[in-house]
């Protein structure tokens, strides 16, 4: 009698199998993907900066995806080198605004210092977007290379590593602030002045 009243136990042996099945389904469908790309700030309006022609590095792309840099037709592969030479030039004479850390040619006809140097990128409506992104990538790469160099000199760490350390760290606030300060310092040595708008020098 008492045996009959007892409920039969549910067999939980297949529980693991069911769970495995579900697990595999979610494993397959999961994409832990984060998008990545080139961050840019659009120009806010019609503010026309007071720029000298020599502080402008003009890059233009025509509708045949040809690259014109400072009135010279070049290949995209050579763009980064040219941009670095321009940014790192430090052409101004010793005194106000002198760039002590620049290692460039110090050509008086090129940029005064990295703070004044502006890369100006223009394009036509027919330019291919892929090529445009490649050019942007090279220009950003020029900045990153120079920042890497300065970060290595000042803090013995690459700028890009500094950024990843800052973004991924679960450090205490104090340590994070130090990292942020270092990033800011390096950024200010080579501020990213990359303009997508047409700039006319005066």
């Amino acid at each position, binding site marked *: 009698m008492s045996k009959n009243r007892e409920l039969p136990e549910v067999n939980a042996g297949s529980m693991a199998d069911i769970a495995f099945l579900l*697990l595999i389904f979610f494993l397959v469908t999961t994409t832990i993907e984060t998008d990545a*790309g080139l961050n840019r700030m659009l120009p806010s309006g019609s503010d026309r900066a007071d720029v000298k022609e020599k502080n402008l590095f003009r890059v233009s792309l025509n*509708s045949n995806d040809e690259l014109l840099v400072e009135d010279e037709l070049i290949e995209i592969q050579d763009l980064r080198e040219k941009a670095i030479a321009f940014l790192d030039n430090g052409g101004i004479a010793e005194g106000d605004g002198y760039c002590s850390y620049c290692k460039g040619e110090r050509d008086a006809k090129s940029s005064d210092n990295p703070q004044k140097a502006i890369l100006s990128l223009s394009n036509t409506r027919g330019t*291919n977007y892929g090529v445009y992104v490649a050019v*942007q990538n090279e220009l950003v790469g020029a900045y990153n290379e120079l920042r890497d160099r300065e970060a290595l000199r000042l803090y013995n760490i690459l700028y890009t590593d500094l950024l990843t350390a800052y973004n991924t760290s679960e450090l205490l606030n104090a340590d994070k602030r130090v990292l942020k300060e270092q990033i800011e310092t390096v950024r200010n040595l080579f501020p990213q002045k990359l303009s997508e708008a047409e700039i006319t020098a005066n």
Partner: protein
Amino acid sequence: MININRKNKSKLPQISTASLPDIVFILLFFFMTVTVMKNTNLLVENTLPNANEIEKLDKKDRIIEIIVGQPIKQYAGVIGAEPKIQLNGKFAQVDEVGSYVLAKLAEKPEHLRSVAIISLKIDKQVSMGIVSDIKEELRQVRALKINYTTFEGDAFNNLQ
């Protein structure tokens, strides 16, 4: 020598598998929570260009997506092969971009509005004309933080 032999012969105790379902369940819940089912079906071709000097868009809560590309085959017959903008899973005109961004911004909590990033997912075959139009629209609604979303890879691959 004899001692060792005897040790080897003695049976190993069986590992208990009783906790296996629990472990599997924990894994299961982990994957269930991190899974994001892809909910936007693309109406346009969208092969992003490659770049390597990129920054990650980690925080998804502040991203507004704009997708541009040629309509996929299914729609190309109806609306033509010219590059089109896709907003919210629908085709849109250039002049709708501004109001779309403003509407999306209004949906976001106030502290995120100033840090919102417009993620431009543009097919690499598109020409810059439509991109410039979109940028102009964005400037007009003062949504200035943009991101040219790309795949990670060698940028020179875009040249072909």
